[in-house]
């Protein structure tokens, strides 16, 4: 079972959205920037005036690694698996897994899109898969 996050008051909407298949970002109403992970304030300008926006879920692989050793017993059955830094089109970077792809076929610059069905059907977290078409 994928280890689940323990949401806080600041992050519970993010995780509730993920559970229904939606990737949320915080957007600052003062400077207009988006951020990930969700925080009490905008880490760019310091404003506490933040709203939620639904991300396109599309982006590209900035860099990645293929784990051949599991980080914990929870991942023992899924090695090798890909951990990647994904640059979303909204201009934020996040860590995720690239799934439904042969690990040998992942590349830096690859276009990816969000997918939400976790490997074991529980603890749904935003993951990414190769885009079906070039976008």
């Amino acid at each position, binding site marked *: 079972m994928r280890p689940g*996050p*323990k949401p806080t008051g600041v992050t519970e909407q993010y995780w509730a959205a993920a559970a229904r298949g939606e990737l949320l970002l915080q957007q600052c109403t003062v400077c207009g920037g988006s951020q990930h992970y969700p925080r009490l304030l905008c880490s760019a300008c310091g404003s506490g005036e933040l709203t939620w926006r639904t991300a396109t879920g599309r982006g590209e692989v900035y860099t990645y*690694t*293929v*784990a051949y050793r599991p*980080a914990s017993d929870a991942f023992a059955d899924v090695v090798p*698996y890909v951990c990647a830094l994904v640059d979303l089109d909204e201009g934020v970077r996040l860590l995720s897994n690239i799934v439904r792809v042969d690990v040998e076929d992942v590349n830096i610059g690859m276009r990816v899109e969000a997918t939400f069905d976790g490997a074991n059907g529980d*603890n749904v977290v935003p993951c990414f898969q190769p885009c079906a078409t070039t976008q």
Partner: protein
Amino acid sequence: MIAGVGEPDWGGEPAASEVELQAQGAVRAIADAGLTKEEVDGVFVQSTGLERMPGLLLSEYLGLQPRTLDSTTTGGTSNLVHVIHAMAAIEAGQCDVALVAYGSTQRSSRTRGVGGWTESPSSPLGQFVVPYGYLNPIGAYAMAARRYHHLYGTGPEDLAEVVISARRWAALNPRALRREPLSLEGYLASPMVSDPLRRADICLVTDGGGALIVSRGGRSGAVSREIQIMGDGQVARGHYWVAGLDDILDTGAAASSRDAYKRAGLHPEEIDLYQIYDAFTIMPILGVEDMGLCAKGEGAAFFAGGRTAPGGQAPTNTSGGGLAYCHPGMFGIFLLIEAVHQLRGEAGPRQVEGAATAVCQAFGGQWSSAATLVLGRN
């Protein structure tokens, strides 16, 4: 000045505790400086986290009444940052003789596995990193190596040069824990852990510790053994883990080393030897680039052909480094201790002839903190 250095014995069974490792190193460093413990009035100490108040515990253990304590935690830079803080405390009159100590039982107490430390599930890492099975911090440096290969066309044989060089130094260091030589074939046979990093690219996981004495100098009765801290620099990057860094190949050493060279009045190419934190082979490759020893993208070539190995023109990590000497969680103290031994001319078979200056470069977190010290013969 660094007036004295000391390291504890390698553990047998049963394993020493963290404070015992710190204390044995401290006693040896105090004696090496020609001082007594009564003269120590500043304590700067860190472990890998089993001890909640390490400064208070070490003071009790050694019977010290320090006027100032510091256990700042910046990951692998912590020991260098403590030296910089000790210099500032001495300058400010908060202490005269500072003990900088480190000790960790991360191996025997099994506080660290390949996946990293245990994170609170409500912390930022617990929520946004742990669910993805990221090997922390191996994954960060694997992703840096991947991007480096992508941008500069390097490959496994380039990473191999770093650890082959480290093993050659370790073979000359009787205290080193991994002294057997490594060939390119042996490197390529090493199992992949977090592609492109193999087992051989990753530092040892050991217990251990070390200590040194920072003072104004001239008090030890052995002035010629004192090592001058010629320049220092440190930077905190404003990110905690690697997703928060714009360029994963930017180590932070450019800023910290620039300040250290400026204060030392030296250009990097004038320095005789390099001690660069090598928890992973990619670290010193990127390190030498940001330290101004070569251009961006040329760090792999810096290590090629034995340039950094014994007898090479750029002696680097002469103890064997974290890859082959030891690595009890934070290696900064060992960068400094090895530089002191080299500059005193007491490094035995691995002595770099005529070494008069050294630069120690540490990295903390995931390129989150960088610290540089330039040391020189007094």
